[in-house]
C-alpha cells in the first residue's frame, strides 16, 4: 500500500480519537479540593439535619453560616476547576488544529487525485466513474467535457473520493451505534421517577 495512504489513515485515526485527549485534560486538573469541600459540606449538612433549630438555635445558626461559607467556597472552587479544564481543552483544540486538521486538509488537497484502487470499468455510469477518477472537479467541469477518461478496463478511485466515502460510512456507523445504545425517553423518564421515589423513601427512613 502506498505510504501516502497509510499517512492519511494515521491522520484519520488521530482525528477520530482526538476526543480522548479531553479525558487527559480532566485528568491533568484534579478536582481534589472540590471533593474535599463537598465532603465537608455533606458532613455539616448531616449534622445540621440532626439539630433542632428551636432547641439548639445558636449552634444551628453557626452551622448555617458555615454552610453558607462552604457553598460560596464550593462555587468558587468549581468555577476555577471548570475554567482550568476549559483552558486545557482550548489548548488541546489549538494543538489539534496545528497537528491534525491543517496537515490533513493540506494532504487531501495535495494528494487528492492519488489512485487508491481500481474498479472494473462499466460498474458505474460514466459521470460517476469520471468523478471517482478525477474528483469533485470533474462534476463541475462535466458540461465542458474538459476532463478525459483513462483508457483501459478499470477506473481508478482517487484518494479524495475514497476519503469522502470512508468518512460517510464511519459517520453512519457512529450514528447506528449511538442510536442502538440510546434509551427510549419514555423508559428513561419512568426509570428516573422510580429512582427518585427510591431515594425519597431512603431519605425519609
Amino acid at each position, binding site marked *: 500500500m502506498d505510504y501516502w495512504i497509510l499517512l492519511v489513515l494515521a491522520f484519520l485515526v488521530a482525528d477520530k480519537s482526538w476526543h480522548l485527549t479531553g479525558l487527559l485534560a480532566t485528568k491533568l486538573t484534579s478536582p481534589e479540593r472540590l471533593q474535599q469541600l463537598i465532603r465537608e459540606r455533606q458532613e455539616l449538612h448531616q449534622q445540621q439535619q440532626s439539630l433542632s433549630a428551636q432547641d439548639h438555635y445558636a449552634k444551628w445558626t453557626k452551622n448555617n453560616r458555615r454552610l453558607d461559607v462552604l457553598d460560596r467556597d464550593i462555587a468558587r472552587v468549581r468555577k476555577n476547576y*471548570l475554567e482550568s479544564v476549559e483552558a486545557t481543552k482550548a489548548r488541546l483544540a489549538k494543538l489539534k488544529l496545528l497537528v491534525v486538521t491543517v496537515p490533513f486538509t493540506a494532504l487531501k488537497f495535495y494528494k487528492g487525485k492519488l489512485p*487508491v484502487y481500481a474498479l*472494473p470499468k462499466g460498474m458505474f455510469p460514466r459521470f460517476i466513474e469520471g468523478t471517482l477518477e478525477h474528483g469533485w472537479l470533474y462534476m463541475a467541469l462535466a458540461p465542458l467535457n474538459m476532463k478525459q477518461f483513462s483508457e483501459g478496463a478499470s477506473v481508478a478511485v482517487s484518494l479524495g473520493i475514497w476519503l469522502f466515502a470512508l468518512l460517510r460510512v464511519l459517520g453512519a456507523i457512529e450514528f447506528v451505534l449511538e442510536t442502538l445504545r440510546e434509551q427510549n425517553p419514555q423508559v428513561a423518564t419512568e426509570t428516573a421517577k422510580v429512582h427518585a421515589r427510591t431515594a425519597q423513601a431512603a431519605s425519609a427512613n
Partner: protein
Amino acid sequence: MSEVSEAEKRRILREKRKQKFSKGAGSARLHKITTQQPGGASGDSTVTSAEISDNEGSLQRGSNSGQSTREIDDLLAAMDPPIEPAEPLESAAPEVAFIQQLMKMQQGSATPPADEKAGGLFSPLLERLAEQEAGGAPVVSGEVGVHQFQVRQLKAYMLLLRWAILLPFIYYVMHPGTAHWLHTSRFLHFVMEPRNFFMVFTTFEVASISIYYQVLLTLERTNKVNSLSYSSKLVTWAGLVPDGMLPIDNLQGKVVVALHYWDILSMYLTDLSLCLVAAGLMKYYHAAP
C-alpha cells in the same frame, strides 16, 4: 408637622410590608429556614445527604475523569440554590434576542389586547427557540422525544438491513471468477454481473428507501408529529420569515419537502459510499493469495 394617627401609622406600615413582600424580599431567607428545618419538607434546592453521598461515591469510584467532571457539574447544579432569572431569554441565542427586541418594539408601538400573550405575533416561535436553546438540542418534550427516538431507531435498523444485503452482493460482484452456483440461474448471473451493478443497486435503493419512507409516514401519522419540523433549525428559521417578505408561498413547507429529498439523497449517498469502500476492500481481499 402634622400629627399622624395611630391607625394611619399602622396602615402605612402594613402597606410598606405588603410592598416589600410583593417584591420578594425575605423569601430567600424564609425558603432557607423552611428547607433546612430538621424533618421539615425539603425544597428542590436542598441536596439530601443520600444524593451527596451517591454523587461523591461515584466521584471517588469514577472510572474516567470526563464522567467525574459531569458528575461534579450535576452535583453542583443540584447544590446551587435555584436562581430565577429576571428575564430567562436574555442569555439565549442572537436570533432569540433579536425577536425579543422586535417584541419589545411591537409592545411599545401598540398595546396588545389583554387576552393576547406578551409575545404577540412572535410568542410561539420565541417559545420554541427558547426551548431549543435551553436544551442545546432539538425539542424533545414528551411525545416528540419518543417519536424522534422511534424515527432514529427506524433509520438505524433500515440502514443495517440495507447493508446486510449490500455487503454480500458486493462480495459476489467483485469476485474475480463467477461462483459456480450463479450458473444455475440466469437471473442471478445477470444480477451479479459487474456491468449491471449500478442498475441493480439503484433499483434496490429505490425500493428500500420507499419502504423506509412509507414506514416513516405511517409513524408520523400515528404519533401526529412531523419529524423535520422539530429536528431541523432550517425549518424553524424558515418559519421566522413573515408571509409576503419573499416571493415564495409556504416557504416552511417547501423547506420541509427539500429536507425530505435531501434525507433520501443522503441515504443513497451513504449506501453508495459503502459500496465504494467495500468494493475496494473486496478487491484487496480477492487479490490476496
